[in-house]
């Protein structure tokens, strides 16, 4: 009977797992919309974006397994770690809420991921650089698609404006964590493997603000920020998500299609 795994989190393994977890959890959240989106085209768009993210997660988990050297597969990481073992950003585990909230969450994340993966293409780590080269093109589409919606909703009706504005205010406190780096990540930056997230912050804010301006939305000031995801301290929502995502594997361990 398979059991919850304890990962040997060397700096490279931890670094890779954090990005993999972001992609998997956000991909899973988006997949919850499948069959429920406000219209057919958007149902497909959300499912497509989910697929991009889950694909990125698969490559990253596979690499984390190689880097760890314990013979673990992508499925071991996805299905056999509990809430405290997950290293994703708090932003990506937040509930879908209404369509505006899902779009805003995706918009804030994609704007970082777009800059991040473009910078990671120059990583000294060949595998991460290769994953970056694929991911940056995908995230460029996520940025464009969600920006179009942010503008349409913000500069739309009184109702749509109120909803997207509320989503922005609710999610903004989760954006500080996007740029958080601990000592192990800083060492990887020095080694040329990781990207200094702090160096992306001004560009991220400028890109986000340009769209928010066009959407007649006010870019919030940075206040107190939520954090904890990178060390496994999560909001109450992640446990519920995992219990659903891991249910089949925990009921019938090792089940395959």
């Amino acid at each position, binding site marked *: 009977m398979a059991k919850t795994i304890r990962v040997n989190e060397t700096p490279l393994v931890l670094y890779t797992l954090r990005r993999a977890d972001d992609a998997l959890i956000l991909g899973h959240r988006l997949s919850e919309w499948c069959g429920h989106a406000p219209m057919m085209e958007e149902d*497909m768009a959300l499912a497509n974006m989910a*697929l991009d993210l889950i694909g990125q997660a698969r490559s990253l988990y596979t690499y984390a397994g190689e880097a760890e050297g314990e013979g673990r597969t992508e499925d071991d990481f996805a299905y056999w770690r509990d809430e405290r073992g997950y290293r994703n950003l708090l932003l990506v585990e937040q509930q879908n809420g209404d369509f505006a909230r899902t779009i805003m969450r995706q918009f804030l994340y994609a704007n970082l991921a777009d800059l991040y993966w473009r910078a990671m293409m120059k990583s000294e780590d060949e595998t991460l650089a*290769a994953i970056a080269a694929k991911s940056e093109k995908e995230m460029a589409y996520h940025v464009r698609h969600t920006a179009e919606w942010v503008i349409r909703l913000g500069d739309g009706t009184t109702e749509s404006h109120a909803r997207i504005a509320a989503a922005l205010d609710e999610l903004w406190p989760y954006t500080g964590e996007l740029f958080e780096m601990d000592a192990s990540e800083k060492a990887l930056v020095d080694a040329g493997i990781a990207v200094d997230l702090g160096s992306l912050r001004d560009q991220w804010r400028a890109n986000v603000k340009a769209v928010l301006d066009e959407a007649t939305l006010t870019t919030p000031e940075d206040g107190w920020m939520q954090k904890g995801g990178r060390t496994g301290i999560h909001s109450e929502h992640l446990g519920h998500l995992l219990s659903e995502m891991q249910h089949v594997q925990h009921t019938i361990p090792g089940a395959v299609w």
Partner: protein
Amino acid sequence: MAGRESQPMPASFPPADTDALLAHARAVAATVSDPEIPVLSIDDLGVLRDLKIAEDGALEVFITPTYSGCPAMNMITLELELALEKAGFDRVKVTTVLSPAWTTDWMTEDGKRKLKEYGIAPPSEKRAGRGALFGADEVQCPRCGSVRTNRLAEFGSTSCKALWQCQDCREPFDYFKCH
């Protein structure tokens, strides 16, 4: 490139030298088509990268995914193994490589023509740099050839396609996105 009907068979199998063996294997591998766009072979798409004989004597085939989450990759791997086994290669290993990242620039001219005939607008002309992704201001209707077209949805029936519509013949059509 060999189609399904014209799969070349060497006079004697297995061929004596490695080059001939690999050329034969490549021709067989190139008959595998994309399960989601059956008019395109994986060679037309640029998904088939390389073949070599591994140290243990197995035939190793290298493929690269189009999009990270492309569900067709598992199917392509299976079909490659089947096609090559049927052609006499008893030990086949399919390896996925991520670098260099796949781009629509690798699609062959023949592939683009086949796409258009199938009713899918091929990715627009190659342009250097990131602007290429969104440079497709002009997408030609694969049915009537008009360039008076507009995008209906950024994300279409598969990861690689967007949904467009022609203003002249009014037909909606798939556009293979630049990547």
